[in-house]
């Protein structure tokens, strides 16, 4: 074992960590936007928009993320649309994760029984007050766990950008592994970097979940 390979390449691995975070943050912003739009489509009274939203969610989440990333990277150039590996990854990840966010948000909107709003208004609260003090706190509490879990999965899924030659954590470890043959050490190092992100994130989600449950 040559664990020194991790020290020698600490800079490259740290740069990989930054790429992973960059892909994750950009994808979070885009996929959350997609999720809100699609969730709203699915609760509108228009049948057509409703169907479109449902079709998006059901199709996208039943097709592998890798196929969606490869579609941007390998397929779109054939019609003259060119994305580099980084943006193919961000686009694929956003479209994929958007379907899961849409479901999380939709379930939150439906989770609060309409009787609650009526009861709050009957007790003398205005519509806005009832929304703010009764409905929204519950709706948000319901959506935070699935949104947190989806985000966590998205961070892990961001490792798929390494398949379209992006030097994120996994891509860097792989690249250096091919050069030094110290795969065990480099992949173990990469695993550690992922754990540094995902375990605190998971603990944070658990903590929020429990706090919201008590309220």
């Amino acid at each position, binding site marked *: 074992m040559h664990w020194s390979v991790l020290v020698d390449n600490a800079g490259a691995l740290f740069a990989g960590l930054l790429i992973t975070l960059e892909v994750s943050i950009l994808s979070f912003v885009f996929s959350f936007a997609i999720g809100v739009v699609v969730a709203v489509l699915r609760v509108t009274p228009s049948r057509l928009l409703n169907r479109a939203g449902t079709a998006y969610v059901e199709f996208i989440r*039943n097709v*592998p993320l890798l196929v969606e990333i490869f579609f941007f990277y390998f397929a779109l150039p054939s019609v003259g649309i060119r994305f580099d590996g980084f943006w193919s990854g961000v686009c694929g990840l956003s479209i994929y994760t958007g379907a899961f966010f849409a479901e999380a948000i939709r379930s939150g909107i439906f989770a609060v029984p309409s009787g609650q709003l009526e009861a709050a208004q009957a007790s003398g609260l205005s519509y806005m007050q009832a929304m703010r003090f009764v409905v929204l706190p519950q709706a948000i509490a319901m959506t935070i766990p699935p949104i947190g879990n989806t985000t966590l999965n998205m961070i*892990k899924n961001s*490792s798929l950008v390494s398949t379209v030659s992006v030097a994120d954590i996994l891509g860097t470890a792989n690249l250096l592994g091919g050069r030094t043959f110290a795969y065990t050490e480099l992949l173990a190092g990469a*695993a550690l970097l992922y754990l540094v992100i995902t375990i605190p994130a998971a603990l944070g989600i658990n903590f929020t979940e429990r706090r919201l449950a008590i309220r």
Partner: protein
Amino acid sequence: MFDLGWLFTWDNIRFLLGGLGMTLAVAGLSIVFSSILGLLLAFARLSPVALIRYPAIFYIEVMRALPILLVIFFTYFALPQIGIRLSPFAAGVTAMSAFTASLVAEIVRAGILSVNRGLVEAASAQGLTRVQTLRLIILPIALRRMMPTLVSQFITLIKDTSLTAVIGILELVRRAQIIYSGPPFQPIPVFALIALIYFVVNYGLSLGSRRLEQAI
């Protein structure tokens, strides 16, 4: 571009169906192994013996916090360095099973913990042993409750088998790439076709499990 005769030749269809077969073989074996390992891990995590419980917690929490692609690479590239040499197929199944087991374990544990304590106490008051209570009372109820989550986890697994393409398993994605790398070099219809195949398999599974749920 809209003449797709080149794609739907008998050779291509047979080639892609073979890929679907490979995808389902990797997925099927991984479902079996991850279910067995996941069940054992769940029991281990619920064990009163700390020496059994803590290794299980460690395995589950570390494994499920890692990206599955990393686990696949580790199994295929790193294990040979400590003398464990696996074929791409064996490495793919091993990695997918080892990873998914950690998620199955959590689903099983949640299912077991959801069973009413009163039922368990009533069972032991009737003279059932611990093992009998687990087998006859807890597991049947828990299994029914965890079915929907388990099915959606296995759908994720089927999607994740696509990642074994990167270690050279000739499943759907890899075969699609082989097809569009030849003339007429048109990847879009090929990707559309395999996306449709995945959709039909996975959506069919989720509809089937919903039906089953209503029937029970």
